Structures are given as structure tokens and as C-alpha cells.
């Protein structure tokens, strides 16, 4: 695809000049040259991971502090979110190595490329070099091939990509390594002496002096006899209760299995036979979730009630929840469920400062995600519900790409309402699970008395009204 675009580029440009004379599509100026690019395409998980490390050289006259990364539009889609889950760029010039700030740049419709603007750690002087490390992850990039399989049949996934890394700059030398699981690939694109084949990897290249936006499509088909779990939506709620000393977590999942669909209808007989034989399957049989220490009161339900097929190992240090959906989820099938558990609040809460006025500042520290792994999330909504009358001071997450929204929720006899902070995240994969969320808020111990006073006053009012009404005589005649 990308190579097609590249070949047709002059024509496109011509058309562009004729039709749209005003603003030419954005292309970064060729201020860098890339040397010795080594790219790894990791196909061992149910989503696509790519990493690249390379050296950039400033070939312009002036110092540069902006570097552009290009991502093909089939990954990004037409929306800015698309399927790109991770875009992380690090520069080795500084010690310690830090992630560079990446922001969404312009979209070039003619090239079909989305640019991301990377701010270098410090300006790169003319002629100087710097080593860059880049990691991306993409969901929904791997497709089953064939799309339909029989129930006990092995599944193959197909990766379609370019053997050249998509770069807006000239690349002097590059290689691409495709990393596979222990079963290796059963079909892949070949040319003269490409690729070099190992047990669990294919290496394409080296290629010398590729032009900007050069691409050449290759395909790798490999056996992946596991489910491809896609969480189409996750709603994660964390309820903070100071009076109960509790942090309640509830997560609602809508999942689908993106593995190959069944070519025929489901046969329970065959499923039971393969289950007895212990065969692997693309159907989701169950999940295992490792919870944070101290988790208790675990439940697993769905829209029509409790699902009895769950097992919680209530180890204090390492609690594990194994749960099985009501039915095996084959390719193309859907399921939805709810998980919930409680934690002692003290484990996640820290008092930052205590003031005489009774208004204390707290910091809550929770993981961004806690669900099953080897799972890709399309949308994850993480909500933190603070106690009534708490005021948010600051929200900080080690993962920066989210939309934040604050609202007020009235629940459990509230009169003022509690602040709900909702973060919406798109395209989440396992790598995001290490991120944490910090919320700083103020909460006075006096406001914890607010509700009992209101409730007692209301009940007292009802009793008084009753006493008074009893004494009123409304009879017409004595």
C-alpha cells in the first residue's frame, strides 16, 4: 500500500498543484539523515509491537530541536486516535534517558501519513548525531488468515507491513527483524537473499540509502493458536470512601475475540472432546487476573447476574482471580462482564499535609489498569469517585495521553455530591499496565460528619412531624 502511494506520489503532487493551489501538504524538511536503523517487529503478542533504534544526524546548517515521526494512515486511521497504542521516543544523549515529548503533528493525506512531532531533549547542532529509540504498539493490525477456521483448527495470523521503516528522512542503512513465537512463521515474503531465517525470527536487510517515505510491502503469516482478546470498552471505577476506609474497584468489560471466526457453527461435542484432549484453542476459555495485595470481596457478574464459574485465590500477598465466561468465546463472539473487589484504603492513600483547620491533603495512588493481560483495549474510561465534599487539587499520571472530565455524582444519601474524575484513554495494551495514577485532593474530617447530621436531622424532622400531626384533631364533629 505504502509503496503504491510512493510510486504514485509525483502524480498526486501534480494533481495537488492543479486542484489545491493554496496550501501544499506538509512534509518535514530534510534536515536529518538516519544512520544504522534497526527495527524489530514483535509478533509474539495478540497486538503488534514495533521498536526501532537509530542514529540521527543533523545535515542542515542550523541546530534542530524538532524531529518528525511518520506513521502510515492505515494504523492511525482517519481519527487522531486510530489504532496506535504506544508512541514512545527516547533520546540517549542525556543521562538518565528520558521519554521525549511527542505531539500529534499534521496529517498528509497525499502520502497517507500522520506525522508526530518530537521535541528533542536539547537542540542538535549542525553535523551532530544522536541515538534515538522508538517504540510503538498497534492494536487491530494483525488479521487472521484465513478468516474462517474450523473449530479445532489452528489459527494463522497475517502481518502486513513494510520491510523499510517509514521515515520522513533519508535512511542510510537499515534492517528489519520480525520476532516470532517458538512456532516460527509458516509463510513469509521472500526476495533474493531476504530474509535470514532463524527459529524465532526473520531478518530483512540490510538496505542502503532508502529515500524518504520509501516502503516495500512484506507479509508474514505465522501460527498463533491463542485468542485475540479485544476489549471494545472498559469502564473502571474506583470509589474512595474515607468513612469506610475502603477503596472499591468495579470494572465493566465489553470484549470480543478478534481471532478467526468459525467456518461452521459451534459444536459442543467437538469442544468437549478437544477440552478433554487438552488442545489449545482460539476460544477464550477464561482469564486470570492478578490483583494487588489485600484484595477481598471479589465478584464476577454479567448483565443477567452472578457467574458462578470463578475462583478467587485469596492469598494476602498475591491474590489471583481466575474466572471463566459463561461460554467459550470463539472468534467474532462477544461477551461482557463486571469484576469488582475491595481494598483497604490505607494501602493506596497517603496524607500529604494536615492543617489545623481540619482540611487535610491526601494523595491517592492507584494503577491505571488492573485487568487481564495480553489484551488490547479500544477505549478505557477510568473514573475515580472521591468522597463527598473532597476537592481535587491535582491529577497526575505517568501515562499522559488521556482526556479528563470532572463531574458531580450524588449517591448514598449525598446532599453536596462527590467529585468524579474520569479519564478516557484510547488504544491501551499491556505496556500501559505499569502506569500509575496520582490524585491529590483535600478533604476535611469535619465534612465526614456532614452526612450523619443531615440524615439524623431528616429522621428527627419526620418524628416531630408525626408527633405534631398525631395531636391535630381533624374530626368534623365531636
Amino acid at each position, binding site marked *: 500500500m505504502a509503496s503504491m502511494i510512493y510510486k504514485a506520489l509525483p502524480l498526486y503532487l501534480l494533481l495537488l498543484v492543479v486542484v489545491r493551489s493554496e496550501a501544499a501538504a506538509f512534509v518535514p524538511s530534510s534536515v536529518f539523515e538516519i544512520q544504522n536503523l534497526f527495527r524489530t517487529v514483535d509478533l509474539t503478542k495478540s497486538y503488534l509491537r514495533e521498536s526501532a533504534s537509530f542514529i540521527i544526524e543533523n545535515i542542515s546548517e542550523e541546530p534542530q530541536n524538532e524531529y518528525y515521526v511518520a506513521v502510515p494512515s492505515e494504523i492511525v486511521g482517519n481519527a487522531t486516535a486510530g489504532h496506535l497504542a504506544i508512541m514512545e521516543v527516547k533520546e540517549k544523549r542525556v543521562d538518565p534517558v528520558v521519554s521525549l515529548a511527542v505531539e500529534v503533528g499534521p496529517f498528509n493525506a497525499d502520502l497517507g501519513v500522520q506525522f508526530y512531532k518530537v521535541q528533542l531533549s536539547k537542540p542538535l547542532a549542525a553535523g551532530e548525531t544522536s541515538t534515538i529509540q522508538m517504540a510503538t504498539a498497534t492494536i487491530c493490525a494483525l488479521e487472521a488468515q484465513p478468516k474462517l*477456521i474450523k473449530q479445532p483448527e489452528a489459527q494463522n495470523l497475517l502481518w502486513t507491513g513494510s520491510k523499510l521503516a517509514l521515515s520522513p528522512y533519508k535512511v542510510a542503512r537499515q534492517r528489519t527483524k520480525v520476532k516470532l513465537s517458538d512456532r516460527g512463521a509458516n509463510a513469509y515474503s521472500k526476495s533474493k537473499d531476504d530474509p535470514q531465517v532463524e527459529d524465532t525470527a526473520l531478518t530483512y536487510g540490510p538496505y542502503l540509502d532508502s529515500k524518504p517515505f520509501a516502503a516495500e510491502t512484506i507479509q508474514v503469516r505465522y501460527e498463533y493458536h491463542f485468542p485475540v482478546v479485544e476489549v471494545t470498552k472498559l469502564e473502571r471505577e474506583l470509589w474512595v470512601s474515607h468513612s469506610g476506609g475502603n477503596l472499591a474497584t468495579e470494572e465493566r468489560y465489553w470484549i470480543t475475540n478478534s481471532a478467526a471466526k468459525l467456518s461452521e457453527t*459451534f459444536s*459442543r461435542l467437538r469442544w468437549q472432546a478437544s477440552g478433554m484432549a487438552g488442545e489449545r484453542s482460539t476460544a477464550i476459555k477464561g482469564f486470570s487476573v492478578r490483583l494487588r495485595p489485600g484484595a477481598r470481596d471479589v465478584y464476577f457478574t454479567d448483565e443477567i*447476574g452472578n*457467574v458462578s464459574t470463578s475462583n478467587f485465590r485469596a492469598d494476602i500477598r498475591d491474590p489471583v482471580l481466575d474466572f471463566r465466561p*459463561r461460554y467459550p468465546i470463539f472468534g467474532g463472539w462477544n461477551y461482557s462482564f463486571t469484576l469488582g473487589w475491595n481494598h483497604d484504603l490505607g494501602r493506596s492513600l497517603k496524607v500529604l499535609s494536615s492543617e489545623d483547620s481540619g482540611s487535610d491533603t491526601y494523595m491517592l495512588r492507584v494503577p491505571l489498569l488492573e485487568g487481564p493481560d495480553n489484551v488490547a483495549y479500544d477505549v478505557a474510561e477510568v473514573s475515580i469517585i472521591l468522597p463527598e465534599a473532597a476537592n481535587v487539587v491535582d491529577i497526575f499520571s505517568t501515562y499522559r495521553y488521556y482526556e479528563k472530565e470532572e463531574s458531580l455524582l450524588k*449517591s448514598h*444519601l449525598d446532599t453536596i455530591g462527590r467529585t468524579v474524575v474520569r479519564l478516557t484513554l484510547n488504544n491501551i495494551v499491556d505496556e500501559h499496565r505499569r502506569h500509575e495514577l496520582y490524585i491529590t485532593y483535600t478533604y476535611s474530617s469535619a465534612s465526614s460528619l456532614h452526612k450523619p447530621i443531615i440524615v439524623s436531622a431528616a429522621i428527627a424532622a419526620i418524628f416531630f412531624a408525626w408527633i405534631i400531626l398525631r395531636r391535630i384533631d381533624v374530626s368534623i364533629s365531636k
Partner: protein
Amino acid sequence: MVLLPSSIPPSAVQALPLLKAVILLTIAGAGIASRLFSVARFESIIHEFDPWFNFRATKYLVSHDFYSFLDWFDDRTWYPLGRVTGGTLYPGLMVTSALIFHTLKALTLPVDIRNVCVMLAPVFSGLTAYVTYLFTTEMKDEGAGLLAAAFIGIAPGYISRSVAGSYDNEAIAIFLLMLTFYLWIKALKLGSAFWGALTALFYFYMVAAWGGYVFITNIIPLHALVLIIMGRYSNRLYVAYSAWYSLGTLASMQIPFVGFLPIRSSEHMGALGVFGLLQLVGFSQYIRARLPSRQFKVLIMVATVGLLSLGALAVVGLTFTGVIAPWTGRFYSLWDTGYAKIHIPIIASVSEHQPTAWPSFLFDTHMLIWLFPAGVYLLFQKLRDEHVFVIIYAILGSYFAGVMVRLMLTLTPVVCVCGAVALSTILDQYTNLATPETTGEESRDGESNKDESSTSLLNINGLARAPIVGIFSPWSRVVVMGSFLVYLCMFVQHCTWVTSNAYSSPSVVLASQLPDGSTHIIDDFREAYYWLRKNTPQDAKIMSWWDYGYQIGGMADRTTLVDNNTWNNTHIATVGKAMSSREEVSYPILRKHDVDYILVIFGGLIGYSGDDMNKFLWMVRIAEGIWPDEVQERNFFTARGEYKVDEQATPTMRNSLMYKMCYYRFTELFGRQGAVDRVRNQRIPSPTTDSSAAPIQLNTVEEAFTSENWIVRIYKVKDLDIFGREHAAAMAFEEGKKKGGRAIRGPSSGGHGKSKARVLRV
């Protein structure tokens, strides 16, 4: 209170209301707690079949406003007819839970509507206990009232319909029934239009809540009529009845489902007739006060005969001309238990419409069933106006409970009331420390009384002088009180046992005992329903026997052809015909009704006896009622008249769609030892053990889903063949092609499925 001697200090008397409140609260608490077995054992879940519809309707009401609920046309049931749901349901139950839900929501309490629905019946049973207390207090005294409250709180006959999750109309209807009766008694006693209006108000609520309101519509007029015949006409009766009838009837007509029934249907004519009679009697009373007695006698004779015959003629005439609706089938079956079996198999097919077996009286009311006649006898002794009411209720209730199992429910309250009256009379007699004057001596016995009641501590007197035998002897007291104490303990034990074992199963979820004693949950129904909900198109049409219609609507959220609201017999017969015919006959029916999936219940693998093969004969019978030429029950029985599914099964049975769908590939599970249906204990012909048996082949439908224990099997109806062939021919062609492919690749190649895939790939 009678149980307490009069010599207690005034401070204790002041504490009595508190004590009463505590006792009633405890009774309500015990009543609620004993209904929570299923929640504790399983979960907070809606039970059985009808509650799923009520739950679905409640969710609709909660998410829409009241008027769109009344105007609700449900196109997701009775496809393609749909159902005017808003106009064909009793909204009382849904409105009640929606009100509770909105109240809790206004208090910002986060409560799930499902939990409101699950807990509604237990909470209302607590209220029923209180109302029964009030009612019985009117009959005798507060002691009897408290006993009656305790009885109704835990009586299995009522619990059977009001455990947590049994979200049905009866859940609130029994409360309303007793409250209406209490208010009627109160209105009659006081002759007050206010209480009469209150009676009408709760009568209206009852009409909104349950079709059993007809019971009230007939029992109150009957009471009034009996009182008139007994010569007990009074202005109090006139005021109470007129207030109730006029207001109640007008109010009841506001319910869309009831509409003009109160003036058009035969069931309501009695109330109207008594209303007219009361006016006549009232008028004649007025005349009598103003006319000489001889003239009056003549007048009254002429007027009575004339008006009565005129009225009767009018009713008969209107019935024949169709202005007054004739009796419905369900009503006929109340008088003739054999009626339904002959004329309406669909009513007879419901187990709760069967006549009651004798043991179930004892099962549902235990010792109260023999206290009940004693209580009625005691009420005969006094025979005040309100006692007449209870006696009428007792007679009618007993009759109806004998006719239909489910009407055990309406009998239970009166059994509790009468039982409480009887028991409280006994307690009064035997705990009363005073000996009647006639014996001439004190027979107070401290020691024996200590066992009976703590109140007797006040009186410790001589022991030896009391006679050994006789009603007032201390020993007879000990024996009687002791035995009743044992009976009461047994009663509580029995009620708990029955509730726990017989009435607390959600029937959506099944529990089985593993060899090691632990409980294993069998959740096949929800597994399959949830699969339908998540993996079929939103507008898929599911065909199943009508029993599962409400559950599919509630849990799978899919369109059904027939459901438990059995309003259209023909449509049900159509489904019955499709199930009991050959595939070639069924397929056009399925296509015409846009059926996408067929759902059958099959218990043969794990021995679940309530499955479709056991209900199959009803499908056949109902289908035969409409198409006697095409479906014949006889053909499903062997020559010896047996219902067989094994190798003796008739060809009609073996070729029926239901049989094929139930046993499709069932035998392959077993291998060499042969397939046994564990419900019917019959061996299913299996090609692996018996070379003459051919495997079941389905041409027009294909297996889509089978639950873990094979209880629910879902089949997808195939589309028309793309080459316009018959499905059987297409299948045979495919089969032939596979055989050809196999021959080329040799016999060692794996399942026939693979060859097809290879063909596709090439």
C-alpha cells in the same frame, strides 16, 4: 391482651404497644428472613418464568414514563403479531416497584432495579403479616391477631409465591387482598363511608395488581347477600357496600386491561346485582317505616318477584346478545376440573392449574389445616357480621384451592386467621388462671403454670387439691399446652424445611450435589440466553416452546414467537406443529415466521426432567387441536401405547423436528456403551453400537449453540439454498462430494470437515 392477667402494673400496660410493635416487627423479620433462602444459596435473581416478564416490564416502566408504559406495544414478543402489553397487563406490581425505585433514587441510594424487584415479595409479606394481624384482631382479639400474623409470616402456602425473586403479581396481591378485607370489615362495623372509600381505594390497587381481584369482587357481594338473607340488613351495610361498590367499580375501570369488564362480564354481575338488591332493600326499609304492614307485605312480594325475575332475564338476555361477555375458559375450569383437559389443552398443560392433591394441603399449611375447621366452628359460635365473612371466605377458598393448585394461595390467609382464632381460644382457655365459678374451688397450680406461661408466677397456691382429670385440672393444662408447644415447634420446623427445600429454587439456576457434598451450580439456561444476547443480531427471532418466552425476552433480549402470556392459542399451536412435524413440513412454517433460531431444552444428558421431550405431548395436543389432520397424538405413541424415544419410537416421533433437535449428535457423546437418556431411562439408537441405526441428520437447521450440560440447544434455521434446491438434496449433494473427496485422499484422512475447507481454499 388476653394472655396477660389483669393484675399487672400500669407501667407494663403502657409498655404493651411497644411489646406488640416488637412482636410484629419480629414476625415481619422472620417472614422476610425465611424468604431469603434462594438469595443466600444462589444470588439475587428473578425466579421462574412469569417474573421475568414482570421484571422486563418494570425495567421498561423505569426507563420510560408512565403513559408510554400504558401505551406500550411490544413488537419483541408474539412475532409477527406483537402484544399490546400496556393494555394487557396488571400494572400494579410494576408501578409499585418503580415507585420504590424512584423514591430510593431520589434519596440518592444506588440501588439496582433488579434488587428492588427481588426483594419486593419478602417486604410485602412483612406487610401482609401486619394486615393479617389487624384483620384477625377484628375477628377476635389482639392475641389471635399476633398468632395469625406469625402464621401467615411463615406459612408455606403463602411463601410458595413470595420468596425473594418470585416477582409476580401475587407478591403484592395477598397483602392487598387482606388489606381490602380488613378495610371492608372495618367499614361494615362502623358503617362508615370513609372506610368504604378506603376499601374501594385498595380494591382499586388490587385490581391494578392481580387478576384474582375477581375473588374480592364476588366475596364482598356474597357477604352482603348472606347478611341480607340472614336478616342482618343495616344502614351500616348499606353505606359500606354502596361506598365500596360505586367507587371501587369506577376506579377499577381505569385499569386499561379491565376497562369495561366490571359492567360487561359475567364475573362482575354478582356485585352489580347485590348493589341493586341493597338499594331495593334499603328502599323497602324506608317504605316500611311509612306504610301499614299488610300493604307493605303485598308490595314487597310483588316488587321482589318482579324485579328479581326482570334482573335475571336481563342478565341472561344480555349474555346471549353478547353485551355481557360469557364466562371464560379459565373460569369454567374452576367449576369443572375436567373442562380444561377436554377443551383447552393450553390451560391444562400448566402444572399450577391442576387440581390440588390432598397431601399438598398438609404440605402447605401443616397443623393449621386441622385447626382451620375448628376456627370456623368457633366463629360459627359467635357469628357476628364479620365472622360470616370469614366463613364465606373459608368455604370459597377451600373449594377453589381444591380445584387449582395455585389457588392454595388465596386459601392460606383464611387458614391462618381461623387457625389463629382456634389456637388463641385454646390458649385463652388453658392459660386463664381463673376457674369457672361452677367448680367452686381454686385450681391454680403454680408448678404447671410455670411451664405454660411466665405470667403465672404471680399466683402460687395449693397444688394437691386440684383434680387430676377434667378441663380445669393442672395436668390437662400441662398436656394441652405442652402438646401445642410441640405442634408449634413442628410447624416452624416444617415451614422452614418446606421453604428451604421446595420453594426456594430459582429454577433458572439449578443446583446439584457433587459426590463430595459440595454444591455444583448448573447454569445452562443463562449460559445459552447470554450467548443469544451477545452473539445474535438484535432483531433475531427465536422460536421456543412458550414456557421459555418470558425468559428469552428477559435474559436474552431477543424477539420470541410465543410466550407465557398465552393469549393466542393458534400461534402456540403453530409452534407446536413446527416442533412436532417433519423437517419438510416445519421449514416453510419457520420461514414464514422469520425464525432465525430455535431453542429447545433437553435434559437427557444430566437428567433434568422438566425438558421439552417431556412437554412434547402438550405441543402435539395443542397442535392437534388446530390441525387434527396433520398432527395426531396417536402417532407419537408406540403400538402398545407407550411414550418411547428409544429404538421402539414411532417414525413420526423419530422424524419430528423436536426429537431430532434434542438427540442430534447426542449418541456420539457416549461411544461404545451406548447412549442413555437419563430422564426417560431409555437407550437412544446409536450408530456406534447398533449398525441399523442411522445418525440423526438435520437438513434445514444447524446446531448453533449447545450449553455445557446440553440442557439448552440452539439451532440456526438455514437460509434458502442458493441454487434453489431442497435442503435434503443439497445436504446429500454435499455429502456425496465429501465422500468423493475422501475416496481420493484415502481412508486415513481426518474428519470430513477438512476436505471441504481444502476445497474452499483451492
